[in-house]
């Protein structure tokens, strides 16, 4: 019977409905997703630095391409063509040690030549450690080149 009365009432009179807000967007907080996950990316700005002396950065000093040595580089290299013809450019290499002048070769060849040239001087008596080192190195290289490694490919 009550349903009948409520039904008749709803047809005749409808109450005004006011929407009351209790939850606002500004009060909304971020939801915690992936709970327990710790992000390892640094979001804090500059990395922490220590005060005091910074690492030394050398001042850039460009070299002068027109210094005397560089400006006249290569002079007299064609002296056997353009000169009187009796002088070879190898003879003009004054700043190179005498055992390397005009020699191209393996370390063993150059060291052997150096030893032969130094044997005539006072080096064996005045620099015994150095002389011994040269002997040791020569023996090592001899054994290595002749017994342990192959020579290059044979000419075909």
């Amino acid at each position: 019977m009550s349903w009948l009365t409520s039904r008749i009432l709803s047809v005749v009179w409808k109450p005004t409905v006011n929407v009351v807000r209790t939850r606002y967007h500004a009060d909304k907080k971020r939801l915690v997703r992936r709970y327990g996950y710790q992000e390892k990316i640094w979001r804090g700005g500059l990395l922490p630095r220590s005060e005091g002396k910074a690492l030394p950065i050398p001042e850039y000093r460009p070299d002068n391409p027109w210094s005397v040595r560089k400006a006249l580089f290569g002079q007299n290299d064609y002296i056997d063509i353009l000169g009187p013809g009796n002088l070879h450019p190898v003879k003009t290499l004054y700043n190179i040690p005498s055992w390397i002048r005009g020699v191209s070769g393996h370390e063993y060849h150059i060291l052997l030549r150096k030893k032969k040239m130094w044997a005539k001087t006072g080096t064996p008596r005045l620099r015994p450690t150095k002389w011994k080192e040269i002997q040791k190195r020569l023996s090592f290289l001899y054994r290595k080149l002749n017994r342990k490694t192959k020579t290059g490919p044979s000419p075909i």
Partner: protein
Amino acid sequence: MKSSLNMASILINAIKRLHLSPQIRLCSLNSAAVTTTTANKTINILKKEWEFPPLYTKPREVWIENLDTVEEKKLGLIELHPMVYAAPPRIDIIHSNVIWQRKYRWVSWAHTKTRAEVRGGGKKPWPQKGLGRARHGSIRSPLFRGGGVAHGPRSGKSHFFMLPFHLRLHGLTTTLSAKLAQDDLHIVKDLELPTDESQYLVDLIENRNWGPAVLIIDDTDYAPRNITAATDNLLHVNIMPVYGLNVYSMLKHDTLVLTQAAAEKIEEKLLYHLHSDNRERMKKFKIDQV
């Protein structure tokens, strides 16, 4: 009979087509020296006595300029041999020459000590077995910090080699030809300057649009006082004798200035080598046979 006449006519036609113009042009100059006057200027044109006459290519004509004034004045005309100053441009030969010049005198002094040379390390650091550590024989092996280097650089490594004689010869001719073809070669009567100030040379180079760097080649070892004093302060203007000429310097300096005597001397020397028997020089380089 008919066939021989045909052969003769074919031969004559072939000879006509040969265009012997250089010799004909030279022969047309009646006297040895022809002087022409235009207004106040006199230009001397000299007929050249060729030791090795150019047969297949025309000789190159170059103005003779002066160094007396800042402005350019043309004093004469000279002919240069095409085999030296009009050779085909071979960039690979120029490259080989530059690489040779840079490398043949270079000795690398980088050096590392081997395990035998590093101080210490004769004793076995710990017994072979029992410790649970890796087995070692010396504390200076390449495996150790502070130990020797196994295959490191060894001092006094030479990069010496000799380029074949004809490659160096043609390097010179190609570079000279390239300089002439690119308007970077100037022939000058002599090196007499009016003043010994460096500013005069700077103004001269600026006025004539020569490159900032100038290489001056003289016939002899000694040059007049004014030009040596002027170039002393200018590092990019250098004077060399004829035997100091080389491909690297010619490429490093933008402009090449030759005196007339120097140009002729270079031509004479290079032509001599181009026409002589170079078999001895072409053989493999041996230090005791230089």
